[in-house]
C-alpha cells in the first residue's frame, strides 16, 4: 500500500514539475469554466445579429472580436463554441471508452475465436481512413453534430479496443494475474479489479490525445457542413461562415482557428505530460564525444616503463549531476601500464568504473561525461589532446574492442560481412572485394565454420558464441596493437565462455596483441592474464602480477574477489564474500572507498584519502596493507611467460 502511494506521489511530483503540461491543464480548466459560464460572460446572443447591419465589424472596436457576416458577435460565439468543442470531444471519447475498453478487455483476456472475429472487424474498420469511415457512418445515421461525433466515437472505439487488447495481452503474463487467479478471483474480477488499473496509464494518455483529435474532427466536419448546424456556434461552423465571407474580410477566420489550435495543443501537452510522468523517455546525448582533457600529472608521477604499449597517468572521469552544481567523479586518478603482448585484467564489481576507464582510452566516454588525464600513451604516441577525428583513426585501427553483449553490439540491419569489412574500408582503404576476401580470412581465424557462406548472414542468424566471434573478427580486422575485451563472456552461455576466452588468449599470443580484459570475475582471468589491476569505486586498489596477487592479495577487496571465484557462475550482482554492493558514485567518501564494506577497517581508514603504495612487487591502496593477514590461492599457472 505504501509502495503504491509513493508511486502515486512520485507520479504527481513528476507531473507537477512539467510546467508546459501544467499550463495546458490550466487552459483546459479555464475552458471548462468559460463553457459553463458563457452566458454570464457576454451580453450578446451567439445566434442573433447584434444590431441591424453591424456585420463584419473589425475587432477591438465596439465588439471585442468584431462581428461575422450576418452580424453576430464573434467573441460571444467563441465562448459558446467552447461548449460545443468540449461536448463534442466528450461524446466521441466516451463512446470510444464505453465500447472500446470492455471489448478490448474481454477479447484480450479470453482470446480465441472471440478475439479473432472482433479483431477482423476492427481491422476492417481501421483499414478505411478514419474520416472516410466517419462519413460513411454519418451517411447512415444522418448529419448533425451529435451524430457526427457519434461516428467519430465509433471509429475511435476501434483504436481503444486495439490498445486495450494489446495492453491486456502483455498484462496477462504478469505475476499479479496468476496470483489473483490462484486466490480464486473470478475472470470478471481479474479483468476489472486487477488488469484494468494496471493498464490504465496508456489508456488515460490515449484518451487525452483522442480528445484533442475529437476537437479537431468536430471543427473539420462542421467546416464541411456535416457537423454542427447553422444554429450551433461551434468553432468549425464559425470557420465555415468565415470562409464564406473571406473575400470581404479575413478576420472572422482568425479567432475560431486559434481557439481550436490552442485547445488541441492544451490536450496534447497535457497528455504528453501524463505520459512522461508515467514513464520517462530516454534523454538523448551527443554522438561520439569525449575528447580527453589534459591535466597535471599529479603529485609524483610514476615513470612509464620502457616496454609498455599503453601507459595511462592520472585518468579521471566526471559526470555532471542533474540539479547539482558539482560534478561527480566515477573514475579518479587511474594509472595503468600494459606491456607489449601482455594480457592485463581489470577486475571489479559492476559500478566500479572499469568500462568507463577503457572507453576513455579511446575518447568514447558517453555524453555528458568528461574525461581528463595527464597522459595516455599508446606505442609512444600521446592520445591526450587529440580531437575526435584524430582519435577516430586510432579506434578500430590500433585499438580493437570486444563488447559484452555480442547480439546487441552488432547492427541488426546489415550482414556480418559488411560490418567486419567496415574498419578495413575506412582505415585501410580496401575496396569491397579485397575487404571481403580479408573478412573470410578473419572469420576463419576466429573459428567460424563455413565463412564463405556465413559472411552474408545477418546477426540474428548467429548464436551468442558465434556472434561474439564475429565481434572479435571485427576488433582484430586492422591488426590492432591493443585489444580491449569488455566482459566478453558475461552474456554468453556457460559452455561457450571457455571457448571464447581460449580464443582471445590464443589470438593474443599468436598475433602478439596486448589485451585489456575487463571482468567482474577473477576466475575468468586466472588462465589468461599476466597482470591484474583491481578496481573499486573508481580507483585502482591493487595491481601486480597475477600469480602474486592471487597467492598473496594485499587489499581486502582483492581477497573478497578471490574468495568469490568458485561461486561466481550465478551472477547475482553481489559478491558472496563481501556484503553489499558498490555504492553510487555520489556517495563515495573522501577516505578509503572500501572502508564501509571492509571487515578490517578501523578509525584510521576513515581519516583521509589513501595513496597507492608499493608492497613487494604489487601496488596497493590500503593503509593496513601488510598488517592484516589475507588469504590467497595458488593461481593455476597463468599465461606468464
Amino acid at each position: 500500500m505504501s509502495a503504491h502511494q509513493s508511486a502515486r506521489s512520485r507520479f504527481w511530483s513528476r507531473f507537477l514539475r512539467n510546467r508546459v503540461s501544467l499550463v495546458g491543464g490550466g487552459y483546459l480548466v479555464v475552458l471548462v469554466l468559460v463553457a459553463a459560464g458563457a452566458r454570464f460572460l457576454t451580453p450578446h446572443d451567439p445566434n442573433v445579429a447584434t444590431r441591424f447591419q453591424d456585420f463584419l465589424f473589425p475587432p477591438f472596436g465596439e465588439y471585442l472580436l468584431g462581428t461575422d457576416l450576418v452580424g453576430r458577435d464573434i467573441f460571444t460565439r467563441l465562448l459558446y463554441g467552447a461548449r460545443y468543442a468540449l461536448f463534442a470531444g466528450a461524446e466521441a471519447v466516451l463512446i470510444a471508452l464505453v465500447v472500446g475498453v470492455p471489448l478490448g478487455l474481454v477479447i484480450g483476456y479470453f482470446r480465441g475465436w472471440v478475439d479473432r472475429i472482433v479483431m477482423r472487424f476492427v481491422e476492417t474498420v481501421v483499414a478505411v481512413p478514419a474520416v472516410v469511415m466517419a462519413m460513411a457512418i454519418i451517411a447512415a445515421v444522418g448529419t448533425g453534430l451529435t451524430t457526427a461525433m457519434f461516428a467519430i466515437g465509433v471509429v475511435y472505439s476501434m483504436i481503444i479496443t486495439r490498445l486495450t487488447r494489446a495492453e491486456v495481452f502483455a498484462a496477462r503474463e504478469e505475476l499479479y494475474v496468476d496470483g489473483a487467479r490462484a486466490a480464486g478471483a473470478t475472470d470478471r474480477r481479474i479483468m476489472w479489479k486487477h488488469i484494468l488499473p494496471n493498464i490504465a496509464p496508456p489508456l488515460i494518455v490515449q484518451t487525452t490525445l483522442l480528445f484533442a483529435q475529437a476537437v479537431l474532427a468536430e471543427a473539420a466536419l462542421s467546416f464541411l457542413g456535416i457537423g454542427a448546424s447553422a444554429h450551433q456556434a461551434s468553432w468549425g461552423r464559425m470557420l465555415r461562415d468565415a470562409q464564406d465571407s473571406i473575400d470581404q474580410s479575413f478576420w472572422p477566420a482568425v479567432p475560431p482557428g486559434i481557439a481550436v489550435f490552442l485547445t488541441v495543443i492544451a490536450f496534447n501537452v497535457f497528455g504528453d505530460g501524463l505520459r512522461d510522468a508515467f514513464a520517462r523517455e530516454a534523454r538523448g546525448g551527443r554522438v561520439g564525444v569525449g575528447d580527453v582533457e589534459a591535466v597535471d600529472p599529479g603529485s609524483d608521477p610514476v615513470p612509464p616503463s620502457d616496454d609498455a604499449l599503453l601507459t595511462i597517468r592520472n585518468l579521471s572521469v566526471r559526470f555532471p549531476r542533474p540539479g547539482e552544481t558539482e560534478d561527480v567523479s566515477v573514475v579518479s586518478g587511474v594509472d595503468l601500464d600494459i606491456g607489449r603482448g601482455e594480457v592485463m585484467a581489470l577486475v571489479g564489481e559492476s559500478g566500479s568504473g572499469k568500462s568507463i576507464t577503457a572507453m576513455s582510452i579511446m575518447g568514447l566516454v558517453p555524453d555528458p561525461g568528461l574525461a581528463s588525464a595527464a597522459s595516455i600513451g599508446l606505442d609512444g604516441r600521446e592520445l591526450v589532446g587529440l580531437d575526435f577525428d584524430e582519435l577516430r583513426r586510432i579506434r578500430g585501427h590500433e585499438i580493437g574492442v570486444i563488447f559484452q553483449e555480442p547480439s546487441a553490439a552488432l547492427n541488426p540491419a546489415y550482414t556480418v560481412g559488411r560490418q567486419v569489412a567496415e574498419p578495413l574500408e575506412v582505415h585501410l582503404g580496401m575496396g569491397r572485394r579485397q575487404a571481403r576476401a580479408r573478412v573470410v580470412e578473419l572469420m576463419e581465424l576466429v573459428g567460424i565454420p563455413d565463412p564463405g557462406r556465413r559472411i552474408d548472414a545477418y546477426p540474428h542468424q548467429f548464436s551468442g558464441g558465434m556472434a561474439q566471434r564475429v565481434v572479435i573478427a571485427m576488433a582484430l580486422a586492422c591488426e590492432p596493437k591493443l585489444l580491449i575485451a569488455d566482459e566478453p563472456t558475461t552474456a554468453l552461455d556457460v559452455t561457450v565462455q571457455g571457448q571464447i576466452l581460449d580464443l582471445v588468449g590464443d589470438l593474443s599470443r599468436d598475433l602478439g596483441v596486448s589485451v585489456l580484459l575487463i571482468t567482474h570475475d577473477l576466475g575468468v582471468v586466472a588462465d589468461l592474464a599476466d597482470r591484474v589491476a583491481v578496481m573499486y569505486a573508481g580507483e585502482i586498489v591493487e595491481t601486480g602480477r597475477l600469480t602474486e596477487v592471487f597467492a598473496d592479495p594485499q587489499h581486502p577487496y582483492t581477497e573478497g574477489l578471490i574468495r568469490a571465484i568458485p561461486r561466481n557462475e550465478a551472477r547475482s550482482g553481489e559478491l558472496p564474500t563481501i556484503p553489499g554492493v558498490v555504492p553510487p558514485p555520489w556517495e563515495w567518501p573522501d577516505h578509503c572507498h572500501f572502508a564501509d564494506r571492509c571487515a578490517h577497517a578501523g578509525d584510521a581508514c576513515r581519516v583521509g584519502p589513501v595513496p597507492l603504495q608499493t608492497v613487494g612487487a604489487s601496488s596497493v591502496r590500503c593503509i593496513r596493507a601488510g598488517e592484516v593477514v589475507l588469504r590467497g590461492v595458488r593461481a593455476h599457472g597463468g599465461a606468464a611467460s
Partner: protein
Amino acid sequence: MSRLLAAIPLMFLTGTLVFFLIQFNPVDPAAALLGEDASLASIAEKRAELGLDRSLLVQYGDWLTDVVRFDLGTDWFTGESVLTMFGDRAPVTLTLVFGALAIALVSGVGLGILAALKAGRLPDRIVTVVSSFGMAIPNFWAAILLAYFLSVQVRWFPAIWSNTRTETIGGWLHSLVLPCIALGLSAAAAIARQSRSSMIAVLQKDYIRTALAKGLPVRRVIRRHALRNAAIPIVSLAGFQTSALIGGAIFVESVFNVPGLGSLGVDAVLRKNTPIILAFVMVTTFVVVMVNIVLDLAYAWLNPKVRPG
C-alpha cells in the same frame, strides 16, 4: 504477391460492412431524388428503377457481382458512371495526398533527426515546439491562412488548384504547393516527433558504440548505422499517416477548390448517394492497402529479421 491477394478479402469486408451500414439511413433516396412534390407512384417507379424495391440480399448480391467486374454503378442523381467520375477525380486527390506525404517525410524525418542529434539543446526545443504546433493546426485552417497570406496578400502562389489541361506543367506544380503544405503539416509534425524519439532510442544502442569504436566517422555512423534502424518505426507511422492524409485531403480540397474526391464524398453523404459512398470507401481503402503493401516491403528491406528465409 501474397500480400496483394490478402488485400482482396479486406476490401470485400469493408465494402460489405459499409453496404449494410448505409441501409440504416431512414431517408428514402428515391423520394429525396424526386423532391417534395413527387407522387407516391413516381417514387415507387424510381425505387424500381434504382433497384431499391428488391430485397436487401438481392441488392447486395447485385452490387457484389458488379464490383467483381469493376463496375461501380452509376450516380443516382446524374446517371454518370461512378468509375468514370472516380477516374477523373481520384488522380487529383492522390496527387495532393502523395505530394503532402513527400513533403511530410522529407521535412519530418530531417527535422526529427536534427532534433535527436541536438537533443536537449536549442534546435531540439525549436523542433519540439514547432511540431506540437503543427499537430494542433487544423489542416483546413492552415489552408485558409496559407491561401490568404501567400496567395491573396503576396501573390506567391495561386489560391486555386489548376490542371495540366489549362496550365503549363510548371503552373500546375505551382498550384500544388500550398494545398500539399497545408495537408502535409500535421503529418510532418507527427513524423518529426517519431523520428526524433526513434533516433534518440537508436543512438543509445550498443551497435552505435561498436560503430564508433571501429573508428567510423560520425556522419557514417549516423547515416549507415543509426538511420536505417531508426527508419523502421517511421515506416510504420507513414502507413498510418497516409490514411490520415486521405481523410484530411477532403478538407483541404474544399478550401482550394480542388476537383478531387472530397467534394464528391461530402455531397454523396449529404444526399445518401449510395453508389458514390460505397465507391468512396472502397477506393480510399484500396489506396491505403496498396500503400501499406509498399511499406511492408520497405519494412522487410530495413529489418532483416522479418524477411522470410
